[in-house]
């Protein structure tokens, strides 16, 4: 008997087992079923891109951002006085830039299906909404008539470790009636659209209202008690960017909000 047909037959036999696993109660609400706990106060750690994040860089200094010709033209036209006159001091605090702005974030559950992310820098609030049970809406879908705002409309979903065939073939060591061992960890995926045009950096490096932001929030709980949060960030904006922008700001968890320091948006600092 050839091995390939045997494997194919065996994998077909797995399918009903997987289907049986699907006959389970509906998943819990996003808050109750959270595979990781992101709530709390977090401080951004600025070890990368310091010169463009901790101080306002020179006008025209957009190194590290792959702007196209239109993007460079917009960046070269940056005028903070004009933004102040228009009441648009928060242009560099929109969702595509906000997690890279030095500061602290406070993550709470607004309700069972909505994460609330407050920032002390610029006093902004992001709402990361999970689809309500039965709404039929999935992450990545955004109501077409939603207004464009600095923080846009964010759809969230949990990504749990996949029950995939492991690469490391371990012998079955557990008895048949032992409770299943669930893989630990997981990730939060957030897709944000309906953004108001703003700046990726304080000095006018632009993104447009058509930008789409995709994030993966990953938690690392260390044995020494430290907790780190890495946000893998993709920004797609064909109007101003010649390539997808990819950055991964990192945060360290703090025990409380004693260092929380709200400051208003600024066009210059």
């Amino acid at each position, binding site marked *: *008997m050839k*091995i390939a047909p045997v494997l194919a037959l*065996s*994998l077909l036999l*797995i399918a009903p*087992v997987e289907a049986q696993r699907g006959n389970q109660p509906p998943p819990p609400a996003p808050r109750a079923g959270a595979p990781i706990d992101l709530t709390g106060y977090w*401080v951004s750690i*600025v*070890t*990368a*891109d*310091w*010169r463009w994040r*901790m*101080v*306002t*860089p020179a*006008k*025209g*200094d*957009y*190194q*590290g951002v*792959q702007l196209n010709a239109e993007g460079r033209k917009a960046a*070269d036209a940056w005028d903070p006085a004009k933004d102040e006159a228009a009441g648009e001091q928060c242009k560099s605090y929109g969702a595509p830039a906000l997690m890279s702005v*030095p500061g602290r974030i406070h993550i709470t559950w607004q309700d069972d299906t909505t994460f609330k992310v407050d920032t002390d*820098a610029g006093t902004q609030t992001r709402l990361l909404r999970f689809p309500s049970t039965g709404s039929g809406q999935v992450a990545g879908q955004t109501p077409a008539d939603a207004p464009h705002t600095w923080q846009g409309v964010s759809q969230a979903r949990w*990504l*749990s470790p996949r*029950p*995939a065939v492991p*690469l*490391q*073939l*371990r*012998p*079955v060591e*557990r008895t*048949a009636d032992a409770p*299943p*061992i*669930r*893989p*630990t*960890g997981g*990730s939060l995926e957030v897709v944000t659209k309906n953004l108001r045009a703003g700046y990726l950096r304080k*000095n006018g490096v632009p993104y447009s209202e058509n930008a789409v932001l995709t994030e*993966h929030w*990953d938690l690392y709980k260390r044995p020494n008690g430290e907790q*780190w949060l*890495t946000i*893998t960030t*993709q920004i797609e904006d064909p109007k101003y960017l010649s390539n997808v*922008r*990819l*950055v*991964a700001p*990192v945060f360290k968890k703090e025990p409380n909000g004693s260092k929380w*320091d709200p400051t208003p948006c600024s066009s210059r*600092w």
Partner: protein
Amino acid sequence: MGRTGRIVSIVFAIAATPVAASAQVDLTGTWQRVGQHDNGAAREPVDLLGMPLSADGRAKALSYDIASLSATERQCQMYPPIYAIVGPFPLQFVMVPDPVTQKLLAWKILGWGDRDETMIWMDGRPHPSSLAPHSHGGFTTGQWEGDTLTTVTTHAKLGDIKRHRGFSSDRATFTMRLNRHGDLLTATGILEDPVYLAEPYVLTEIYRLTSNPNNFPLTACEPIEELPRLHENPAFVPHYRPGKHPAMNEMTERYNIPLEAVVGGPETMYPEYRKKLKDKYVPPPPVTGRGGGPPPQ
């Protein structure tokens, strides 16, 4: 039981396990660096911005003269493990099976020109004694937590962690967290060093799986005579005396960034440090094009 029977047994054993405790993702392949951070990029010879250096770490950095690499015994010195995140080349992951059981024994990140390979042992073996020999690649173990691979590296030799601007000692520990999201791989690196760092140095990098395995393979290094003055006096190591680094003020002159920030320190990586800068910093005049420094890798 014949071979076919064994295969069927294995497949059924997997199917009977509701969820594998060691859920894993496949890292095999070449991962092109696509993150747009300036982790290793710097133009000015003194650029320690945001590096949590200790007093010794700062002294080491400011005494360093890149001409020291021309000394015969230093020409083949390789970059330390953190260069998987800091360096310019792709990560090439290879799975290493146990030759008998075919179970995953280790992941290997292939070396490149001047960075040693990293063998990530996955079989639970302990790290060796602190007295064991140190190598350029160090000793690394790995562990899955769900779909995330965490690696811990010890026993690496002294090496530079920001292109000849900052250093880790042979007592450093480097922890790397690898999260795969589709064809993207994010690495979060945490370097801890009781000698040259006052707090952990944390960096991230993003890679994209590519079918183009372009790389700069690790090759044998052969020292040659680069600077005759070093061969005339083999006991001399090029260096700068305290406070005498000739490029100490370049960043301040070019970007108006105060020298106290340029030389790093743990306080410089926290948001509240901006308050110390606010009254001292004035943005430099506008630049044209992409002026002001090198593009990140």
